[in-house]
């Protein structure tokens, strides 16, 4: 079985499993509760799939988890309690949105850090740019009187 899963996973593009996810017999009668169940399901990982939520997956285990979520909701748990319950049983691996903690610091702050690095490098780039302009200005000597006169003459010729 395991090798089969591996094989399937390795097939050309690692396609997400065929999606016959939520079936009618799972759906709760209370539409508000069902909506909450769907939202929670979207954030929980199907453990045997490749990066799929239990809401999208047709795997047996995903179905079990979906039923479990609904069971807890019917029992009166809040959304947070349901998620905590699932995490306590399956670990943080089930969370598609990893929690913010020491091990995920680089993950969560990385993009922000990159934006900052990018902005700082752009600022430095423009600084250097301006310095180059200043240097250019410094090296260019002002026109001498003779040159000024010639310039005026040329300009006059142009106009007439």
């Amino acid at each position, binding site marked *: 079985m395991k090798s089969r899963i591996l094989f399937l996973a390795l097939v050309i593009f690692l*396609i997400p499993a065929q999606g016959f996810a939520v079936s*009618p017999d799972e759906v709760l009668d209370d539409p508000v509760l069902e909506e909450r169940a769907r939202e929670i399901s*979207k954030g929980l990982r199907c453990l045997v799939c490749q990066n799929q939520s239990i809401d999208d997956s047709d795997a047996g285990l995903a179905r079990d988890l979906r039923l479990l979520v609904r069971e807890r909701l019917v029992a009166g748990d809040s959304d947070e309690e349901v998620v905590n319950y699932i995490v306590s049983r399956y670990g943080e691996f089930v*969370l598609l949105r*990893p929690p913010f903690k020491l091990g995920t610091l680089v993950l969560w702050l990385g993009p922000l850090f990159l934006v900052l690095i*990018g902005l700082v490098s752009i600022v430095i780039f423009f600084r250097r740019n301006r310095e180059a302009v200043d240097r250019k200005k410094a090296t260019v000597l002002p026109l001498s009187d003779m040159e000024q006169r010639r310039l005026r003459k040329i300009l006059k010729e142009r106009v007439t």
Partner: protein
Amino acid sequence: MSAELGHFALILALFVAIVQATLPLIGAQRNYAPWIALSKPTAYCQFALVAISFASLTHLHVTSDFSVLNVVQNSHTAKPMLYKIAGVWGNHEGSLLLWVQILSLFGAAVALFGANLPPAFRSRVLAVQAMIAVGFYLFILITSNPFERIMPPPLNGRDLNPLLQDMGLALHPPMLYLGYVGFSIAFSFAIAALIEGRVDAAWARWVRPWTLAAWMFLTAGNALGSWWAYYELGWGGWWFWDPVENASFMPWLAGTALLHSAVVVEKRDTLKGWTVLLAIIAFSMSLLGTFLVRSGVLTSVHAFATDPARGVFILALLIIVIGGSLALFAWRGPQLKSGGLFQPISREGALLFNNLGMTVAAAAVLLGTLYPLFLDAIGGSKISVGAPFFNAVFIPLMIPLIIAMAIGPLLNWKRGDLIPALTRLKLVFLISIVAGAATWAMEMDGPFMGVIGIALAVWLGASTLAELAGRIHLFRAGPAETLRRLGRVPRATWGMTLGHFGLALAIAGMTGAASWKVESIQAMKPGEMVNVGGYEFTFDGAQQGKGPNYDIVTGKFTVRRDGEKVVDMLAEKRIYPVRNMPTTEAAIHTMISGDLYAVIGDPEGADGAYVTRLYFNPLVVWMWIGAIVMVLGGAISVTDVRHRIGVPHRRRPATAAKPAEA
């Protein structure tokens, strides 16, 4: 016989590539003309040899030669001919052969059309191309030989994965590979430029069409993939932030950045080092994308370990290519002197801002994709990084970028002025606020992101049109003058206009489908009716049937709106007996306002009832229309006359007789 011929041709191609990778490079260094000239015939020869190899594998698949392992694992005599051919690249080994086929094709194209390149430079470009090829040939020959025989040959094959027996997925890999490999040209040009220590406008003019072409194919490939997911997976999803999707999205992001920075090199002779670096990054991301998908490392670190030969080879190749090119960049990059200076608020500044957003986005996607592997490898906890993470990071990065996209094209080169640009967008701003407010009024209960998405789409779309209107003096000059100006808009500008406008359409489509999808899942008896988003779906029952290599259940639905018939829909469920796998063929009726989408599932009870899934996906079709418009923009831009002329030359003095307009 065919298998041995293909195998042998591939081995020969390896040796030709080794020659092409070394002698022309040495020749260019020592200015020895015969060795420089060697790069052309070797490029043609390589292409011909790989073509023989590819044709051999195709022949084996078409004739169902079950003495070859690759055919056994991926084919079946009952498979339709189209998928026998598509099956050639619908597997690991074959897809790599397709990769080198495209690589050698592009190499030959550089040799053929590169007449206006300095010979030494061209030979260096082709030598770098050949180095990449050597890596791939070795990888195929040592670890992934598609021509391996099997003894004794079985009577029939194991068939191609049914999910792959589909037009969309038959075309998806070649499109992506054309994109990936297209960036290899930009990469080779970048490396050759680093070796020579020179990047100029002519360089950018050469790199741009190749980058554009690669970008077009990658756009099309990604759109095709999401479209396939949409109609094939049976619940209307189209993007999952799956590592495999990310693998092809990262090069797209980097390539988009490269496209924009190459404009600055060409027009203003600056940002050279950065553009060369982007070319290296875009191709590195492509390599990474290919190998992430191929090595199995994504499934888990353990899958990677089950086939260490491939994994180790891949890792080594990645380190050599990426590490080597970055080292070369660190060494030679500082020599690339930049010319034109510019202010932060300018066209160049706006393009640089695009580069910042795109590269950070690509890096963030890379981080999210590899982080679980990285954490696992260093012995940390096992975590998942899924769609909620990517949405939380990617969307906030894109919003400022889209806002700026509207303003950038209105700024002048070198030194722009923000106030006049913003003044020109006053009306556009008003329209997008009204559009957002209207959306909010209509969809009070929906997510607020939907309102923002629509407002952004309108902002970008309207500002793009406003830029074009300003360019052709619409309503300011007479209609004749406007038309004359319209005819004179350069093709590259059309590319920008269509590219940006296409993105606006795509944003509208993504927003609609993500925010206001209506779903209904139930068991339906024949004659029963369900209302989905104002459309009444009546189930007319299901029928059994047989396809060429599958069994089939067809469910019929009649859809009405306010009692009036809209359409009949036939949803299929197929079972492929060889692998005992089901696939869904959703019935989709596309309208401007959204798609009606029906899926039939398993029978429920004995009275002809079936599980059905019915959806209304608002605006979704605009996502793909947008992608088509973007690709079209790229295609028009590629044909810009500048790319054909190559080197800029001064116009004749104004006193000379004006030639007639074409």
